[in-house]
């Protein structure tokens, strides 16, 4: 499993635990239909839908999708790392915006930053959605080992 996938999946597992803790707290306090704590509901959704689901799927896809031939079998991982930084920045910003909303638009900027992160991951994964073996002949080959 590549390093980027291990980061993404471990971050997803931590966020799953955090999101489930908030969900369990809400459920125990009075059920999820209780709308008196909207910030907890928003945190629960953010941590589980953005925080758990997306990095887990992207991390697994980065590991398992068909590889290229040559020296970069999984494409340019730097784009994935930039995506991870943008995602984490947007997620932390989103949490701050939920806990301490300053304006009605305060959640839009972090959501935009997360969106840029998702676009980076899309750019990284897009060329690898192909039949196994395709393009192996046309990719640049790696330098011969000394």
């Amino acid at each position, binding site marked *: 499993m590549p390093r980027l996938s291990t980061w993404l999946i471990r971050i997803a597992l931590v966020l799953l635990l955090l999101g489930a803790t908030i969900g369990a707290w809400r*459920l125990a306090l009075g*059920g999820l239909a209780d709308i008196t704590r909207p910030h907890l509901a928003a945190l629960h959704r953010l941590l589980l839908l953005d925080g758990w689901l997306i990095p887990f799927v992207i991390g697994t896809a980065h590991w398992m999708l068909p590889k290229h031939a040559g020296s970069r079998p999984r494409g340019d991982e730097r784009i994935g790392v930039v995506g991870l930084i943008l995602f984490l920045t947007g997620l932390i910003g989103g949490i701050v915006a939920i806990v301490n909303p300053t304006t009605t638009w305060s959640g839009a900027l972090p959501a935009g930053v997360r969106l840029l992160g998702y676009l980076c991951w899309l750019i990284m994964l897009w060329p690898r959605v192909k039949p196994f073996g395709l393009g192996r002949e046309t990719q640049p080959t790696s330098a011969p080992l000394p």
Partner: protein
Amino acid sequence: MPLLSRWLIKSGLAALVLGLCLELLLVRPGGLWPSLPDAALHLGAVHLLTVGWLLQVMVGVAFWMFPRHPTTPPRGPTRLGWWAFGLLNGGLLLRLVGESWWLGFGGPRWPLMLSALAQLAAVGLIVMLLWPRVRSMSS
């Protein structure tokens, strides 16, 4: 595919069908079963689709496919996985019944608290089971 993965994925598929059935109940003709609490049906459907279906299928596939340990047991302590499976599905069913009871018929809150504890414990066990297997093949 290991037995635990098969149970997780098949339960996930059952949760998908059950979740869609609850969604169908939500759009029932007006006047039909008016005492059914729509809020509980909606929340139940959402959680059957996200926890029951998505989470279980993802964990089932991860338990099957993630890098195995070089030592035995190669997929880690399977007993943790079975506990997680039981607690997750038990908690999910308890919440379906408990939330409808609480919202529709003024039932007690303890089923919701018990369900919350069970599902949280299940997630903790899932993290404990998968975490050591998230590693590079060579390490």
